[in-house]
């Protein structure tokens, strides 16, 4: 193992802490510094749109690790410190305020920023009551405004927007979701799954307006309404822009690393620049299973890429990425997704959406390539193994609830995914 003297990790999320933990687990004994622009110790993001907003968790309980973790693993925390530029020749990262930190290896786990609608939406004026959700501060600001009886418009019918909408309903707000595409989670889940999800929200009293563009905000200094492209007005007390994220790639760019929709890395987190690594939401990592680079915004990918980059920084082999895995919870329903859906896949349904418990499998050439599971985590986990094994299965067996999914795991496994 090559032992660098100092490793600097930039970022305050899961990819960053997973890398720190793995570095120590793998025996790295050198200096380890974690630099985060946020003032809180690294925290978990999934609760921000759910348990934090609902009050089931407070800010402290979102911490990824107790303080002892950083002490025991000798991770020096530089919190509330923004890294501004990377100089690979001098092997140093510049920090806001004029300091700089030398390194032997640098990991960028910089995540991303919430994508925002342009200021022209409010006629170029600042307008209060319009939120985004990416950071703990964002979540706390939003939570402070989510009081029962208020009217909230959520712009964007992706997972984040739908989770905020569900939490808002549970808190007693009137909620409308506006989605520009014709269906919720357009292109990410099968239309049958989107239909079930829409029904779940409508039954809970959430208004869903799909195929609707947003033309602007009215009011001032506080928002009074969201104006739609068709001229309709949605009066509201607050609004949440949940229209995706932009990967934070400026530091990687300053270091001269290749960027292609994200910081381009191998499966071991290596960027195009020696001694520079990247992981998490900002990284577009090579996935041998799919033989292409994927930028996955998921908890699992962040953790795994952090661990892989840690090993890569020590010159150790990185394990192959797991089958992509994602979860969400909305209105008390658990959703799990695995694999990557592709257009043209044959869809096989197990269970029925009407029963509230079902799995939609995507198959290509008789091989399970993706799944969407509603309230069926056990089936989703076995289905994930089916995706991993890439052995052909019979669609009628998948669809038959009397056939145990586990029994389909038998038979020879094949390597690689047929595309």
């Amino acid at each position: 193992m090559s032992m660098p003297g100092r490793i600097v990790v930039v970022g305050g999320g899961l990819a960053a802490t997973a890398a720190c933990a793995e570095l120590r687990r793998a025996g790295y004994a050198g200096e380890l510094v974690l630099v985060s622009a946020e003032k809180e110790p690294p925290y978990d993001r999934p609760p921000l749109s759910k348990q934090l907003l609902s009050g089931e968790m407070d800010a402290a309980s979102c911490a990824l690790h107790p303080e002892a973790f950083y002490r025991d693993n000798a991770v020096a925390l530089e919190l509330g410190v923004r890294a501004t530029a990377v100089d690979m020749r001098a092997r140093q990262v510049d920090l806001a305020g004029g300091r700089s930190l030398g390194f032997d290896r640098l990991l960028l786990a910089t995540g991303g920023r919430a994508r925002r609608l342009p200021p022209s939406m409010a006629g170029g004026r600042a307008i209060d009551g319009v939120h985004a959700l990416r950071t703990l501060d964002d979540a706390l600001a939003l939570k402070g405004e989510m009081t029962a009886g208020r009217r909230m418009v959520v712009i964007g019918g992706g997972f984040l927007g739908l989770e905020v909408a569900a939490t808002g309903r549970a808190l007693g707000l009137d909620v409308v979701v506006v989605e520009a595409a014709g269906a919720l989670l357009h292109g990410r889940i099968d239309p049958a799954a989107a239909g079930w999800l829409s029904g779940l929200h409508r039954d809970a009293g959430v208004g869903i307006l799909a195929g609707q563009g947003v033309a602007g905000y009215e009011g001032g200094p506080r928002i009074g309404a969201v104006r739609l492209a068709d001229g309709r007005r949605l009066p509201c007390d607050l609004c949440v822009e949940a229209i995706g994220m932009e990967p934070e790639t400026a530091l990687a760019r300053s270091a001269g690393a290749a960027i292609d929709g994200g910081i381009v890395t191998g499966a071991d987190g290596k960027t195009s620049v020696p001694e520079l690594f990247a992981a998490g939401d900002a990284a577009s990592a090579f996935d041998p299973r799919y033989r292409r680079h994927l930028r996955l915004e998921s908890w699992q990918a962040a953790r795994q890429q952090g661990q892989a980059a840690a090993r890569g920084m020590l010159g150790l082999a990185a394990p192959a990425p797991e089958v992509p895995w994602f979860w969400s919870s909305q209105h008390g329903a658990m959703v799990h997704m695995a694999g990557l859906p592709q257009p043209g896949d044959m869809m096989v349904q197990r269970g029925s959406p009407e029963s509230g418990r079902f799995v939609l499998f995507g198959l290509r050439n008789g091989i399970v390539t993706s799944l969407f599971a509603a309230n069926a985590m056990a089936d989703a986990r076995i289905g994930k193994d089916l995706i991993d094994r890439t052995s052909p299965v019979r669609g009628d067996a998948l669809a038959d609830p009397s056939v145990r999914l586990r029994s389909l795991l038998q038979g020879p496994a094949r390597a690689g995914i047929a595309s």
Partner: protein
Amino acid sequence: MSWKTIARADEVSEDEPLALRLEGREIAVFKVGDRLCATDNVCTHQHALLTDGFVDGEHVECPLHQGRFNILTGEAMGGFVTCPIRTYGCRVEGDDILVDLTQPGAPA
């Protein structure tokens, strides 16, 4: 000792654990082989019901972060979980499952 009848034995299978609320606690009853085991149902990491998760032999995997617990002992098996879950006394009498929250589960 305060054994309470909480369900019929045929309401729990290896693939279908049972979730219930008993004396204000969320309790899970799992079937591992021929054995029935009662444990806390809430993951020790973040709030999620383990009965919404994945039973894999004598382990259960949380539906959120896939942290694993040993159902027989309550032990946290790594992943993201470090604190064990509590286990409780659990036995079958006739067709009934009885649980006693005042005593821990029998050691494996």
